[in-house]
């Protein structure tokens, strides 16, 4: 079975799964309650199936999907580590999963305390003074952080600061965020090792600089040796420095963005703090700030008032709200459980993440080009440039061939500054046998690329579907079921 019919195609008129109790109050005709011009004329065309058909359908679909629970998932920059099962129990506890966001704060003290404690712990890990847990994902955290910086400059009537500097090695979310916050984006080129080019930076900073956004370790998996200098240059020009925490899994307990000079930091709890990625989300993107930015944090902020935790809404300089409630609380609860499991030993998380990445790099350096020849941090970036030039086998082909090995390929064609990039982030939660199996597969593919390039270029061979016609998908968009 290589296709699964849509649930709509399995639908039969009149079939039911869930039914509901009979109405226990006197029923009144709908038309007498709601004006007829506001009533729906035609029922929504939802599927009609029995419960077992529904359960088999989604079980069949789940079997056509790769996850960390299935096998190795070294997707660079995404930190696809193991998601502990106890966290799934924690977020479903009655007081956690079944608390209402608008219930009085005095009836949700446990949750306010959890948020308050998490804020303190994350401040300790990052070296920041305060933290908001309201942003629902990394990019949402970026937007929050850049809006905080905007509010800071506005509060000082420093309105000429219209530009945000973003290195060309940055994730696409950085420039997109700056634009969403109304800033002009200035791209600054990186050195070959992904670090910020100080001379190029000095040329672009000035009285119009609002901020610099930086990922450290960079998207090449290398720590920027000049990070304090970078922060000093921007600060001297009157700008603030933003830390993209995408790569925080590399440095926990070893270094803190707050100590490097950053004013704002966002974390990705769904990366570094083990919460599941869910097929694309939900995430959680807490934002930490130095004291100077505290007045601008989103409302409400959890505060201690005597023995009570309260929501503090009275913050006249706040940027407002970025989420309907307090953010992805269920995700924060999972990360809270993760912090409890590690405590100060979070440092070992980073230690083993870095060990595993360097091990892979050491074992593959004779088979692929290295983006940069230096010990890496939590991820290593290889390149298939030579294989492409000499054998016509591209990074995409290698990624597709890996699918036949049952592992998820690394991130490919990113960072943009590395040709034919292959970005591998094994994380700390893999055992050596899994790393060795991946290394063996990558080595075999490199050999096969030379001996039988067509076999690699026509991959995958064993997946439920072959390569997809993406051009057709974009040219003739088919974005929903339309019936027969």
């Amino acid at each position, binding site marked *: 079975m290589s296709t699964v019919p849509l*649930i709509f195609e399995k639908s039969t008129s009149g079939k039911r799964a*869930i039914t509901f109790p009979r109405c226990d*109050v006197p029923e*009144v005709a709908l038309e007498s*309650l709601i004006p007829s*011009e506001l009533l*729906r*004329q035609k*029922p*929504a065309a939802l*599927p009609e199936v029995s419960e077992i058909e529904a359960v088999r359908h*989604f079980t069949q*679909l789940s079997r056509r999907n790769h996850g960390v*629970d299935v096998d190795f*998932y070294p997707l660079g920059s995404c930190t696809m580590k193991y998601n502990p099962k106890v966290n799934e129990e*924690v*977020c479903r506890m009655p007081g*956690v999963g*079944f*608390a209402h*966001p608008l219930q009085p704060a005095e009836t949700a*003290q446990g949750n306010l*305390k*959890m948020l308050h404690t998490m804020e303190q*712990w994350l401040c300790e890990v990052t070296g920041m003074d305060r933290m908001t847990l309201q942003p*629902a994902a990394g990019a949402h955290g970026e937007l929050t952080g850049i809006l905080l910086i905007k509010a800071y400059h506005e509060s000082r009537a420093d309105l000429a600061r219209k530009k945000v500097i973003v290195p060309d090695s940055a994730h696409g979310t950085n420039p*997109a965020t700056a634009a*969403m*916050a109304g800033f002009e*984006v200035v791209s600054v080129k990186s050195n070959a090792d992904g670090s910020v080019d100080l001379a190029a930076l000095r040329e672009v900073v000035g009285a119009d600089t609002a901020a610099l956004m930086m990922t450290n370790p960079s998207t090449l998996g290398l720590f920027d040796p000049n*990070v*304090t200098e970078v922060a000093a240059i921007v600060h001297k020009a009157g700008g603030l420095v933003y830390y993209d925490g995408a790569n925080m899994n590399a440095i*926990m307990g*070893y270094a803190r963005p707050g100590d490097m000079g950053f004013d704002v930091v966002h974390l990705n709890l769904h990366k570094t703090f083990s919460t599941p*990625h*869910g097929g*694309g989300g939900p995430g959680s993107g807490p934002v930490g700030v130095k004291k100077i930015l505290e007045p601008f944090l989103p409302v409400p902020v959890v505060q201690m008032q005597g023995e009570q935790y309260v929501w503090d809404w009275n913050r006249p300089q706040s940027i*407002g709200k970025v*989420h*309907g409630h307090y953010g992805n609380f269920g995700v924060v609860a999972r990360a*809270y*459980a993760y912090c*409890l499991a*590690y405590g*100060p*030993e979070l*440092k070992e998380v980073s*230690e083993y993440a*870095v060990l595993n990445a360097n091990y892979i790099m050491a074992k593959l350096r004779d088979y692929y080009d290295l983006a940069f020849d230096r*010990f*890496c941090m939590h991820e290593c970036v290889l390149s298939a440039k030579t294989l492409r030039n000499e054998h016509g086998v591209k990074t995409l082909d290698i990624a597709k061939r890996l*699918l036949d090995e049952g592992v998820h390929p690394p991130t490919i064609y990113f960072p943009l500054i590395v040709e034919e990039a292959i970005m591998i982030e094994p994380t*700390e939660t893999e055992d050596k046998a899994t790393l060795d199996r991946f290394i063996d597969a990558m080595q075999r593919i490199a050999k096969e690329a030379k001996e039988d390039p067509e076999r690699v270029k026509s991959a995958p061979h064993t997946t439920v579907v*072959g*390569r*997809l*016609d993406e051009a057709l998908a974009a040219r003739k*968009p088919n*974005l929903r*079921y339309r019936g027969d």
Partner: protein
Amino acid sequence: MRYIPITQADKAAMLRDIGVSSTEELFAANIPADVRLTRPLQLPPAITEMEILSHVAELTKSNANLQDYACFLGGGAYDHYIPSAVDTFLRRGEFLTAYTPYQPEISQGVLQVIYEYQSMVCALTGMDLSNASMYDGASALAEAAGMVVAQTGRKKVVIAGSVHPNYRRVVKTYMHGIGVEVVEAPLDHCELDLNKLAGLITEEVAGFIVQQPNFLGHVEQVRAIEAMVHAKGGLYVVCADPISLALLEAPGNYGADIVVAEGQSLGNAPSFGGPYLGVMATREKFARRIPGRIVGATLDTRGQRAFVLTLQAREQHIRREKATSNICSNEALNALAATVYLTLVGKEGLREVANLCVQKAHYAAARIAKLPGYQMACKSAFFKEFTVNCPKPADEINKLLLGKKILGGIPSSVDYPHIPNAMTIAVTEKRTKGEIDALVAALGEVK
């Protein structure tokens, strides 16, 4: 360590292969000494799984929760029934522990779920296309505001004062970023004042945002508003309650250009406010303007139907600062919950849920309005929420209700000072007649 499966022997062998004697050498080669943290992290000592469970249970046991209390709170977070099979799939590791389906050949499961989700959203809203999800209803509404600004080139957005106060706050935060003015349209009791609205909708307005039913529970004159907005060339954004769409007209049938919804009520736990589900659907002509991931059907090399992320030339990883939004991670797992929920309740079941809500809410409203000192705050029709004026401030009344294991409605005092003692009460299909009668009796005791 708990989740690190490398043995000391493994570690020694790996270090040997790398050519170093300790992991410290790897860090020393990267991190300059002046930014190294030289002390241990000040965090409580690690505890085991057993201890984690008892710690969190202890921490949260005093929280009121919807399993122990009869909940009449709504405001975008509802106590609807979640069928058992929903959680079965939220726990499937293949869905739970996957990321965005960048490699379609091994991600057909998530991709097909999202395609089915998009199809169901279109069926409910009457729109042409849906994205794969956004963070929540509030942020999706803010993104919709950004969309109407980008589409029209106009720099002002008008939003009904009857839209959820927190959603209005989020829209304002986002719009401040791009220098767009947000004007609030005033209310007459519990619904929009259409006369005043007419004066606000001009040719400078990029779009108008209405919520149906509104935050106070009551229905707006969505057809009359549509004519006003389109007459001035603006776009019409409707924030809908997805359960209500089983019985209320689909916004696509009364001229909405963008429909946004909070999808929590579709199989997602209240979870103290998140993770929720931002639903967004629009017209085909705005396909290249909508933010977020979109899944499309196509063919593979073997000629089979297969699914893939598409129209990506809108997105940040391709377009960087020219993208339609910076959104990357979304709420895919919550969209899965919604898809399984809508499959399980199905076409007829959703109408049943909606009808139970309407009937029970009207039963509750009629009984409460007969109590001395209580009156409906307005006469207009409502769906599952309604607003009543009370003899005392609502938060005082709620304190009394808590003692009877009842979570009372949302006090209006902060956001709607013109009805200072009012309370907005939500009644879902889960509330029994007994619970409603208990609420009415408790309210009747307020002097």
